[in-house]
């Protein structure tokens, strides 16, 4: 099982490395077109202290767990 997980992680790293090599793709939404995405109401996690509390509420009372979106969330607006 651990081996299977390790394979997934290695695969992910290779995938990310591969994507990095494609860093010259022309962005179809230009930096100056991102003012809507930069608006605070578009923030995926405007209040981290509140979001982590609610995640804890759900984790404590439901069988499911994980993939709650701690990663990423950036819009490259800055």
């Amino acid at each position, binding site marked *: 099982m651990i081996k299977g997980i390790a394979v997934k992680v290695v695969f992910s790293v290779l995938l*990310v490395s591969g994507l990095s090599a494609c860093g010259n793709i022309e962005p179809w*939404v230009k930096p100056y077109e991102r003012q809507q995405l930069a608006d605070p109401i578009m923030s995926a996690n405007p209040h981290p*202290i509140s979001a982590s509390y609610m995640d804890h509420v759900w984790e404590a009372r*439901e*069988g499911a767990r994980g993939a*709650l979106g701690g*990663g990423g*969330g950036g819009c490259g607006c800055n």
Partner: protein
Amino acid sequence: MSLALNKARILRSMVAGAAMALPLVSSAGVLPDDRADALYHRYEGGGVTIQGPSVLVRKKMAEKYAVSANYYQDMITSASIDVEVSGASEYKEERDQYQLGFEYLRGKTTYNLSFTNSEENDYEAQTVGFGLSQDLFGDLTTISMGFSRGSDTVRNSTDPSFEQDIDRWSYRVGVSQILTKSIIATMNLEVITDEGFLNNPYRSYRYIDPNDTRRFTLAQEIYPRTRTSNAVAVNGRYFLPYRAAVYGGYRFFTDTWQIRADTFELGYVHPIKQQWTLEARVRYYQQDNAEFYQDLFGRVDQQNFMARDKELSTFNSTAFRIGASYEFAQTGWRFVKKGSVSLFYDRIEFKYDDFRDARVSQLIPTDPNYRPAGSEPLYEFGANVVQAFVSVWF
């Protein structure tokens, strides 16, 4: 006597908590703004009240480094249905959690490291997390990955000689993608593996009393010693033309205990002028039971693993949220750049499909509410969750 019937569940979220570690909320190419938050939280439902403070401070240095610290406390008063069925009386206890996070930004890559410690009188948990995120494709895409390692010690307040361990591993990958000028989407995957003493030392399953089939008898639960879960979530957020946002998400979950769950979420954010932001949200969750879960077993030691934890049963929950934030000092005041106060209220309805209200079969048979074991009404309850917090950017 402290009977922490919900302990294993409350604490098992530690690794996932580290997944939500403070540094990971930033995008790859820029560190989060300096900010301090102080929150009061209160959960009340099903005979349980949990309340306490949470304080989070984060500060960056030279635009390259950032440090964050969080203190979180749960003060628990519980007379839940499990406590009542076990014949115990209401108990009180406290949990304190400390978390430290570090971030380092280099080019378009952010590296982060976090440490979490949680302590109760009969449970300790330590988690270390590492992650990185990177902007790609003209910053249209942010990818992230992370790993956490947790180590718990489980004790039993009624048995000083009892001490067991749990090891936890969490692996995460995520991608955040700008799709159009007004839509951003994210996808996250997480695999979590636990190994060790995974059941709650205080919780019991119930089986039909061989001397009186209308009654039941309790015995200590037995869980497998390993659990691996997979979760994948997709989320999207859309900027509406009149400056408001709508967001939605779906998460699919499976694990080696045969639990399968779906979570749906839909929300709306509506700013009013420059100072107010209103929010409404609905969330629906549904799961199927673990393969070794039964509300009422036919006999003692019926199978290798036996659980009657309602969080492993088949059930659904529906939650409605309303919230408001008000910004103050928007033009700055002394060292403060701006501040906000927020109030969120969530109402959650839990409805169980195979967890019955066992208190009913503990009544005397002449009581009009009495029902024999196995034919009690299905359990359900509602909970109120309130969060009030102040945020200051500096």
